[in-house]
């Protein structure tokens, strides 16, 4: 009897071990294989902001487009994560055929890992599929009278912006602030004076009481009634409006053009045998239909014709500049967020060293 019991126990243990082993193997081998014939699956690894633009406009649009052209049905497997996390997930083995991320640096990271082997920036618009700008969300009626960057430093204002360590969005925000200061668009800050620009950032951050981990969380907190102003993207505000939120936004005189890249991941499309349809999907992102799809869900189109068509919803900015003004992403990240960067030093001065 007792022997039987033990046997049973041993078998259970062995079975459990086997089960564990099998599930590990199954998880490891869970890639997509090309399905012959009428159906093809594309895996999209995107950041969270354009979720609705993809889910409700662009992906269905491409499915129709591809069906008409080839008779094939495209299935999408979509994943939406914070841009940096998505980029790392792809490197870590999430086999996305196409990535659509919030910033160039996140695609570059995948390229540096050897998974994207072509010059993805040689595509139309430098590989960028949508744009946005950094704006200020303010309470209805703009009670604090916010007009431009310089107002952000006024004493007693409660400013929200996500943490640039965890959020690409916050990096855009701080780049926008820094660039606008360098370009001479902030009263009291002389043009092309990095020290004065850094001092201005410090003054604004003395007003920052909450740094959420992502752009969305930051806006959600603002919507919940926290703070007087949130530095955010235009598209976050427009999405908030769609969801019935009531607040206004202010476009500063000078702001950065946020450019969102997309690229085909060579290693995974080749592994899945879906290069043709993946390339077609990427090309489709620059089509008038897809560009209107972005515009419908808060993002500015990169296509100039569509841009003109939606001008009433996306007013032009007095001084709009790209990250190239700060020397491109790599240089900007080093100069602002690196170990001796403007932002890093500012926080050391503000709080760290006593």
């Amino acid at each position, binding site marked *: 009897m*007792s*022997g039987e019991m*033990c046997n049973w126990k*041993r078998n259970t*243990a062995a079975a459990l*071990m086997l089960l564990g082993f099998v599930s590990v193997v199954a998880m490891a081998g869970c890639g997509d294989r090309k399905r012959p014939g009428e159906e093809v699956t594309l895996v999209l690894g995107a950041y969270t902001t354009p979720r609705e633009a993809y889910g409700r406009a662009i992906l269905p649009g491409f499915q129709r487009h591809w069906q008409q052209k080839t008779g094939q049905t495209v299935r999408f497997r979509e994943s939406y994560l*914070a841009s*940096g*996390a998505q980029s790392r997930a792809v490197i870590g083995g999430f086999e996305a055929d196409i990535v659509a991320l919030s910033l160039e640096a996140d695609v570059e*990271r995948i390229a540096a890992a050897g998974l994207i082997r072509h010059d993805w920036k040689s595509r139309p618009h430098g590989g960028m599929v949508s744009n946005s700008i950094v704006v200020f969300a303010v309470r209805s009626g703009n009670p604090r009278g916010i007009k431009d960057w310089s107002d952000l430093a006024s004493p007693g204002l409660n400013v929200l912006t996500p*943490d640039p*360590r*965890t*959020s690409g969005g916050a990096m855009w925000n701080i780049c926008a602030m820094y660039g606008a200061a360098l370009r001479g668009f902030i009263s009291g800050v002389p043009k092309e004076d990095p020290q004065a620009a850094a001092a201005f950032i410090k003054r604004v951050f003395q007003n*920052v*009481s*909450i*740094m*959420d*981990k992502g752009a969305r*969380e930051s806006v959600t*907190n603002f919507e*919940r*009634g*926290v703070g007087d102003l949130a530095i955010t993207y235009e598209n976050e505000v427009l999405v908030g409006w769609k969801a019935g939120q009531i607040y206004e936004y202010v476009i500063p005189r000078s702001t950065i053009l946020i450019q969102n890249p997309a690229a085909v991941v060579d290693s995974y499309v080749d592994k899945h045998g879906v290069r043709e349809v993946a390339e077609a999907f990427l090309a489709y992102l620059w089509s008038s239909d897809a560009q209107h799809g972005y515009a419908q869900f808060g993002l500015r189109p990169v296509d100039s014709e569509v841009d003109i068509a939606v001008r009433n919803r996306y007013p032009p900015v007095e001084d709009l500049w790209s990250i190239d003004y700060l020397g491109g992403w790599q240089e900007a990240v080093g100069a602002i*967020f690196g170990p001796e960067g403007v932002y890093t030093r500012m*926080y*050391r001065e*503000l*709080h*760290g*060293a006593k």
Partner: protein
Amino acid sequence: MNRSASNAKIESEVSLLQGVRPWGRWGLRAVAVSYLLLMILVPLGTIVQTGFSAGILVFIRDLADPIAWAALKLTLGVAVITTAINTVMGTLTAYVLVRLEFPGRRLLNGLVDMPFAIPTLVTGLMLVVLYGPQGIAGAWLQDQGLQVIFAKPGIVLALLLVTFPFGVRSTQPSLMELERDQEDAAYTLGASKWTTFWRILFPTILPAILTGSLLTFSRALGEFGSIVIVAGNIPGQTLTAPVHVYGQVEFDNARAASAMSIVLLALSFGLILMVDWLQRRKARMYAAP
């Protein structure tokens, strides 16, 4: 009495394993040990390796960074406060749930585990909704000039909620095991209720309380999900060590992230060893003739 109980336990273990071939007996150990190594030691080893990848000096420099240091101090502070409060409140709750009868006891007993069942991110959100500027409690507190959410009290509040089950659940079983006779005997022999508690009840359940506090403390050191929502995450003010680690990971600085993790790990592990040592020493003292 304790000793005979443990002898009986050993006997039953022997009888259970009788008739099993030697490889079977070792097989069981091998499964458990390799599972532990694979699931815990290997990942921990990777963290240690990454943290020290650039040498001990860089490791120290990563931690000596003012922002990292402030985050570590804050985390330790809130973990100590949380542990103190939840050790007392957890023990009290366990006592009430085990010893006292009142309507709704079973329901309350079930509620204790709820913080484990909710994703801590949701715990954070709940607290923001309740104590945030638009929340019922938050609006009132703000009128009193108290800021809870996006400040240090909010961090402690979140930790108290997340770690609450540890304090209760570690103490409860030893309270249930404790024969009521001993208390009654002491009480009838003239000891006051308070003396009965301190001399009879407390020494018996102390190891369980300590275990609970340790779990609470370790969990408080590592808590991320709720903190990242309620804290505000301002470096040098409300940025805790786990959120700092997350920031470093997101910023592709795995080394600094690992360095901080090693410190948190070492703190937890060191404390566990220390309490274990204390308990052994105490057990020896009692066992000595």
